[in-house]
Every structure is written in structure tokens, then in C-alpha cells.
């Protein structure tokens, strides 16, 4: 059939005639199209036709195979988790699922998700509105500070909370002389909500900001021209327009809360991740842990699917409002500026200033008491070693996956790309647990070695490397590659001499992101690290668990610095890609 052939080269005389008939009489200005184009076409097409079906090069096949293998490797943990849980037998699995214990864990997790999401709304939405739509002073600074908690590991926040407000924290020790015997317990739900809110509200803050910025200002003006005042316009036009962004932000918050291990384990709240960990520790039969992990996976997948739906809706919203970005009139706060500033300051103090002060306080106390810094250096060296190894491996694996996804779009490459992204959605504890099972049973030679830990890091953080490299590749026009080919370079030479040099910023950004994330990784390090292998993260976690706050202070300070670096890299990345 004529329709199956590529339009550009395959247009035959019949096609052209059909085309002309189908579209009827041409408007005035296009009269010259009536010139019999097909005569020209047939002459120019002839020598080009043989190129229509280029021979599939061996390099391309190799790329497909390598990328596919990487994708399979990334799928391995999840697949094995399924096998493991399934081996228990349907009846047993059903019993476990129906048990009161599982129900309580589900209920706990959902309560936590709900409360943290609501609390994040209360902070994130007004914060976003203030920094986008009003004349609040220092909006840029507030934006960066407001987003910063995102990169601070939740267990550092939980540590600072316990070290401040816990039974052995300094607030208690200050208040004791005043007759306060016991502060209300920080452990359990309240502490978990507090800590997680402070470190996840940025997801809502950032999506609400993006939503507010992307909404066409003309929509507001249209409502005003139709007789609505400012407040009614906000309620009837702005808010409905924000709905998809807010939904997306809430889903991200929920996803983060469900996956978080550090904060809930330190604050002893029995949500999924902690229950899985305890189950893994306490019994020899780890089937229950794997069943719980699978339930968690199902929950996260549901969240991910809804997130994708919401993004579809978001595109519809943006379609009607493209182009013509006009300066938006900022709301004048007037005297309201002061309460607004107080609000922003309060959030920043709670999220950044307090944790940092607590860390410094305990560090100084520890140093004064003669605490040795030696374990810190060992832990730092270990963290550096593991994180740099993970960064190198992740980037090497990300290159073929990203290249395949960008240059050879197909159903296959989408599958490869999605598989590589699995680690992004799966909770770290789930990946760690499944690798424990897999390593103990099938790969004892690498189980509890650094290699196994690196593999876990790569599964978790490959998406970050694929993401940065992919956005780098998207900016390299395929025309450049074609130019190189036309100048006589073969595909491999083109990769070495054109693509890789142009991709260098993207590659380094990938290395940096994976490195910084791996520095902060906790659950996989706990479960998979070689015996006696402590990193900064595990040191904070275990010291806090035993209330040795001074021991956790130095590693926490180092990780806070690492977090600040992550932020710098993310901001630079956004500048480069122009988001």
C-alpha cells in the first residue's frame, strides 16, 4: 500500500494527484503548488530509493543487546523478590497478608502518608504562592532555602530531632532543673510526621511553584475581564489550574514517605519499611519480610501509575496555555509582608537552622569531652570508596541505556529505559532485601562484599545517571552525528569524537548526582555492607539508636555539607537544561 511507504521519498505520481484532489482548490497564495511536483520528485528520488532500507549495523545490534542486558540486571532484584515470596505457597502468603500485624502496618503507613501530605500542603502551597506570585523580599533566596531540605537525608533530620527533643536530648537536660520530668515522647507517629514533613514538603513546594509559573497569566486576566475579583479569580481559575501540579506533588510526597527508612526507623514508627527491617532481623524465615516488601511494591506501583496519569492531565492543562509569556503582575503584600517573612523564616529555621545547630552543639560537646574522631575518618573513607565506585559503574551502564532511548525510540527501548528507572520508584529497603535473598542463595561469592553493595547502589541510583545523560543527549542534535558521518567517520568514531566530548557535562553531572546520593544511602548499606563496614550514614543511624549523640554529630555535619553540594549540582543542572 502506498500509505505504508515513507511519505517524503516514496511519494508517487498517484500520491501527489490524490493529495491535490483531496485538498481541493488551493487558496490563492499556494497556487504554485499546482505545478506538477511529481515530475521533479521522480527524477530526484530514483538514486535515493535504495537507501530506504539501510542494513542494520552490527553496532546497533550490540547496543540493543548491551542495553537489554543492563535492563534485565536491574529487574533481577524485583523478580527474585516475587519468586521468594511466591515460594511460600498461596495459603501461607494469604495468612500473612490477612494477619492483624500486616493490617496494622498498612494502617500505620497510610496514616503517616496522609498526615505528612496534609502537613506538606500547609507549608508547601503558601510558601510557593509567596515566592511566585507576591512581592515578598528575597524571593530567590527563599526558593533555594525552601527546596534545600529535599537533599538532606531524613535520618539526619530524625537524628537532630531525637538529639534535641528525645529523652536524652538537650532540651530535656535543660528543662530537668526546672522540674520537667519528661517531655512528651518524640518517638512514634508525631515525631515521624514532624521529621518527614520537614524533609518532604519541598516536593509540594516545587510542584506548586512550577504549576503557578506555568499557568498562563492571561487566564487570570480573562477571569478579571469577566468580572471576578482577585480572590474569586484565585479560587475559580488559579486553584483548578493548579490541581494537577498539586496532585503530582502530593504523590511524590506519598512515594517518599512510603519508601523512607531512615526517619521511621530512628523514630521507631512501625510503617512498612521499619516492619520489613525488623522482620528481616528477627526471624530466620524471611518470607514474611518479602511478602511485606511485595505489598509495599504494589502500593508504590499504584502511586507511580497515578503519578503518570496526573502528568497526562497536566499536559492537557498546559496545551491550552502555551506561548506568549507575559510579565505577571505581582501581588503587593504591603503590611502582610511581615507575617509572610515570619512564616518563611519559621520553615527555614525548623528545616535547616535547628538541625544544623543541634549537630554543631553535639559535635562541640563531644570534642570537649575528648571524643575520638578516628571512627569518623574510617566511615568517611568507606563512604567515599563505595560512592565513587557506584558513580563510575552507574554512569558506564547509563550511557548505552540513555543512547538507545534517545536515538532508537521503539517499544523495546522504552522497556529498557523504564526498567533502568525501576530503582527510582522502589523503596531502598526493598531493593536491599531482595539482593540479600539473591546474594545469599545464588551468589554467595559476592554476598557481603563491597561488589554487592555497589550493585545495590547502582540499581537504586542508575536512574539519576540515565536522567542527566539522557537530557544531555537530547540536546545534541542528530544532525551533528549525521554531519560527522557525512564527513567520513563511522559510528564508533562518531561516538568517540563527537558524542562523548559534547556529552561531557551530562556525564559529570551524572557522576556527581550518583556519588552524592550514594554517600547518603542508608538501608542498602545496613543490609548489604560487608561485616564491620561502617559508612557515615550507618554511623549516624546506629549511634542515634543507642543515644550516642556526640558520635553521630561529625558524620551528620559531613552529610549536611554533602547535601548542600547536591543542591548546588541540581541547581546547575537545571540552569544547563534551562528548566
Amino acid at each position, binding site marked *: 500500500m502506498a500509505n505504508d511507504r515513507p511519505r517524503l521519498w516514496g511519494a508517487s505520481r498517484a500520491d501527489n494527484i490524490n493529495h491535490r484532489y483531496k485538498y481541493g482548490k488551493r487558496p490563492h497564495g499556494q497556487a504554485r503548488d499546482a505545478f506538477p511536483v511529481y515530475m521533479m520528485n521522480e527524477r530526484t528520488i530514483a538514486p535515493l530509493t535504495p537507501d530506504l532500507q539501510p542494513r542494520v549495523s552490527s553496532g546497533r545490534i550490540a547496543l540493543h543487546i548491551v542495553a537489554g542486558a543492563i535492563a534485565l540486571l536491574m529487574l533481577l532484584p524485583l523478580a527474585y523478590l516475587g519468586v521468594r515470596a511466591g515460594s511460600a505457597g498461596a495459603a501461607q502468603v494469604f495468612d500473612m497478608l490477612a494477619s492483624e500485624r500486616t493490617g496494622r502496618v498498612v494502617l500505620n503507613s497510610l496514616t503517616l502518608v496522609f498526615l505528612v501530605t496534609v502537613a506538606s500542603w500547609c507549608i508547601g502551597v503558601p510558601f510557593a504562592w509567596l515566592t511566585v506570585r507576591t512581592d515578598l523580599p528575597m524571593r530567590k533566596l527563599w526558593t533555594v532555602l525552601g527546596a534545600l531540605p529535599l537533599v538532606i537525608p531524613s535520618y539526619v533530620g530524625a537524628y537532630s530531632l531525637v538529639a534535641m527533643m528525645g529523652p536524652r536530648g538537650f532540651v530535656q537536660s535543660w528543662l530537668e532543673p526546672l522540674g520537667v520530668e519528661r517531655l512528651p515522647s518524640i518517638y512514634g507517629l508525631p515525631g515521624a510526621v514532624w521529621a518527614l514533613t520537614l524533609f518532604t514538603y519541598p516536593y509540594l513546594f516545587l510542584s506548586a511553584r512550577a504549576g503557578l509559573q506555568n499557568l498562563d497569566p492571561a487566564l487570570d486576566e480573562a477571569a478579571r475581564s469577566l*468580572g471576578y475579583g482577585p480572590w474569586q479569580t484565585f479560587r475559580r481559575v488559579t486553584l483548578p489550574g493548579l490541581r494537577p501540579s498539586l496532585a503530582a506533588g502530593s504523590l511524590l510526597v506519598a512515594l517518599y514517605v512510603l519508601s523512607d527508612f531512615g526517619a521511621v526507623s530512628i523514630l521507631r514508627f512501625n510503617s512498612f519499611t521499619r516492619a520489613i527491617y525488623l522482620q528481616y532481623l528477627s526471624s530466620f524465615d524471611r518470607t514474611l519480610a518479602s511478602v511485606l516488601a511485595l505489598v509495599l511494591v504494589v502500593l508504590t506501583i499504584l502511586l507511580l501509575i497515578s503519578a503518570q496519569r496526573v502528568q497526562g492531565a497536566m499536559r492537557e492543562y498546559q496545551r491550552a496555555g502555551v506561548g506568549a509569556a507575559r510579565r505577571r503582575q505581582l501581588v503587593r503584600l504591603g503590611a502582610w509582608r511581615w507575617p509572610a517573612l515570619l512564616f518563611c523564616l519559621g520553615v527555614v529555621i525548623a528545616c535547616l537552622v535547628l538541625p544544623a545547630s543541634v549537630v554543631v552543639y553535639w559535635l562541640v560537646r563531644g570534642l570537649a569531652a575528648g571524643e575520638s574522631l578516628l571512627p569518623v575518618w574510617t566511615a568517611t573513607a568507606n563512604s567515599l570508596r563505595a560512592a565513587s565506585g557506584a558513580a563510575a559503574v552507574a554512569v558506564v551502564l547509563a550511557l548505552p541505556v540513555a543512547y538507545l532511548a534517545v536515538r532508537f525510540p521503539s517499544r523495546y527501548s522504552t522497556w529498557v529505559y523504564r526498567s533502568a528507572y525501576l530503582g527510582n520508584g522502589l523503596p531502598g529497603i526493598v531493593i536491599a532485601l531482595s539482593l540479600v535473598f539473591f546474594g545469599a542463595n545464588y551468589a554467595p561469592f559476592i554476598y557481603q562484599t563491597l561488589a554487592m553493595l555497589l550493585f545495590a547502589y547502582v540499581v537504586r541510583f542508575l536512574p539519576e545517571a540515565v536522567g542527566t545523560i539522557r537530557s544531555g543527549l537530547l540536546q545534541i542534535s542528530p544532525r551533528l552525528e549525521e554531519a560527522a558521518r557525512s564527513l567520513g567517520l563511522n559510528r564508533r568514531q562518531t561516538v568517540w569524537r563527537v558524542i562523548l566530548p559534547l556529552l561531557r557535562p551530562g556525564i559529570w553531572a551524572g557522576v556527581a548526582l550518583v556519588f552524592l546520593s550514594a554517600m547518603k544511602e542508608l538501608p542498602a548499606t545496613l543490609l548489604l555492607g560487608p561485616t564491620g563496614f561502617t559508612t557515615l550514614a550507618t554511623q549516624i543511624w546506629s549511634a542515634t539508636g543507642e543515644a550516642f549523640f556526640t558520635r553521630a554529630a561529625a558524620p551528620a555535619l559531613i552529610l549536611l555539607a554533602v547535601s548542600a553540594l547536591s543542591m548546588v549540582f541540581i541547581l546547575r543542572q537545571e540552569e544547563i537544561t534551562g528548566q
Partner: protein
Amino acid sequence: MMQSDAQLRHPTSEYEMGVRVCAAVKRYGRVGAANGITFELARGELMALLGPSGCGKTTTLRLIAGFERLDAGEIEIGGKPAASAGLHVPPERRRIGMVFQEYALFPHLNVIDNVRFGLHSYTGDRDRRVEKVLEMVGLDGMERRHPHELSGGQQQRVALARALAPEPAVVLLDEPFSNLDAGLRVRVRAEVRSILRQAGATAIFVTHDQEEALSLVDRVAVLIDGVVRQVAAPQQLYRQPADRDVAAFVGDANFLPGTAGGRTVECEVGSLELVSERKGEVEILLRPENISVMPAGADAGARVRAVLFFGHDQLVSIQLPSGRIVDARLGPMYHFAIGQPVQIKASGPVMAYARHV
């Protein structure tokens, strides 16, 4: 040369006021976007604000709508003051209808709800009104669709219906056709014009497309550098531009130096009748279609330099003996070769402007 205030007013003195803009000034920092804009239009009149990009026409429209605050001057809509020194009626109380360049349809509402959106304080039967407006723009049957399910032309008509529904004192249209492709544009333009006429609406279009302005409205206001240079009916604007800049912006223009002596002017192409009496050194405006070209012998001083053939007409550039180039617009049946000696003849009456030194 600017027209005096009296000329900028509407020609007939007995009329119902639609919009009056008087000496409107708007500055952004030090840059003046509107440097004393003055014009009026009557109820039921269609007017275009025409000018090159950056001339302040969109700013003027947004001043009328109330999206921008006036720095000086006055604006009245439907006889009521809308803005002046110390007064700024917010947009929602100005009884305006606005059609945005990108339409700005509410993506979360369907066609009916978009159109009904402005009817919150409408006293009559709202359903009936929505029905009527949708029928007027020819969108009956699409009530339940959402904006993203409509074509560009349909979105345009929803935007128009939404603006017209509350029976505003004036409809403001900001480059309303710039998002439509060329073929569609001509048709939609005619439709919009007849819808506005049918609704008896007062309307101001902002456009940089002179063809659009000339074919669409009763009067055109030409803005250059934040000032209204001329307000006139399309024919008058084209035939008798108030100054050289207006002449150069509206349509193609040849300028030739000449010496005016009362009712006629002497110039390189001969003696021509003047539109109005004048004396002294001037510059005259020759429209390309007022020049005819004839083949001549080799001793003729003028030569064809270039031919741009468009189909329905052609633009022939001719170098005069003085070296000046004039363009002539001719029908498609003539054929001139490059370098061919020709004789040209211009027909008056022509406009004359003070000569730039």
C-alpha cells in the same frame, strides 16, 4: 506631523461614546510604552490599533482593560471614567470583554462553562444567553467539549463568545488572528467581523497586520513610538496618510523629492496634482499602484532593475535617471526584462510632506 486633537476625535459630534482615551501615558522604568495616546470611538464602532511591534498598541489595550495602571491621562468606557490620576477601576468592574492572543480559555471548563463564566451577575436568562451567543459564533453542538478538544479556529470563537456573553461595553481583541494559519485567517476574520456587527458590539483590535486592520474595521488608529499618529477610515488612511512614517508603515510607499507650487508639484516623474495646496520643497508619496510603466527606446533614462512576480500582480523596481529607485505594481500580463529601458507615468493627486534634510 501629528494630527491635532480635534482631528483625532470622532468625525460626527452627535454619538454615544464607546471608549475615550485621552493623553494616556504608561512608562516601564524610563521607557515610555504609551506617550500620550488619544483617541475615541463611538458605540458600535470597530477600531483597530495598528502599529509596528513595540509601538505601544498592546499596552494601550491593557490600559483600557485595566491590567496596567495609567501613569497619566484619562480613560472612559461607556461614558464612565475607568482610569485617571488617582482612579483605577479594577478590570472586573470595567464591563470589558477581552479576547486574548492565545485565547486563554479555562482548560478545566467545557465550552458552555467557559461562556457562562462571565454571566455571574447577568440579570436575564443565563442559559438562553449562552445558547444565543454560541449560536451566534456557530458553535452550537460543541457545548460539552473541552478547550483542548477544539481546533484553533473553534477556540477563537469560544473566546469571542465568552467575551461577548456578558454584553460588555467594549470588546478588546489582542492580535486575535495571529495564531491561525494563513488560509484560515481570512475566513475567520470575516466571520469575527460579522459576529461583532451582529452583536452590535464596540470593539478594539490590536494588530500589526495592516491588511487585517484595513479590511476589518471602521477606523484605524496608527500608533508609532507610543503616540497615535492618525485615526482614519481605511480608505483615507491609505490614500492620505497624515505623515511620512504612517505612509511608510501602511502599504508600500515610494518617496520622491519635489517642489510644490500651490495645487501641483514638480518632481522627477513630471508634474502631479496635490491633494491639498502647498508651497515649497516637499517629499511626495507615490503608491506603487499609481505608477504605470511603458517600454521605451534606448534613450529613455529609466531602467528596470528587478521584478518580483507574485502571480496576481508584480512589483517592478525602476531606477530613475537620478539613481533613485521606485517600485511600480503592475498586473500579471506585463513582461519586463531586467535592464530594459522604460518610461514611467504617475497619476495624482498625491500627498506631500515636509522634506527631511
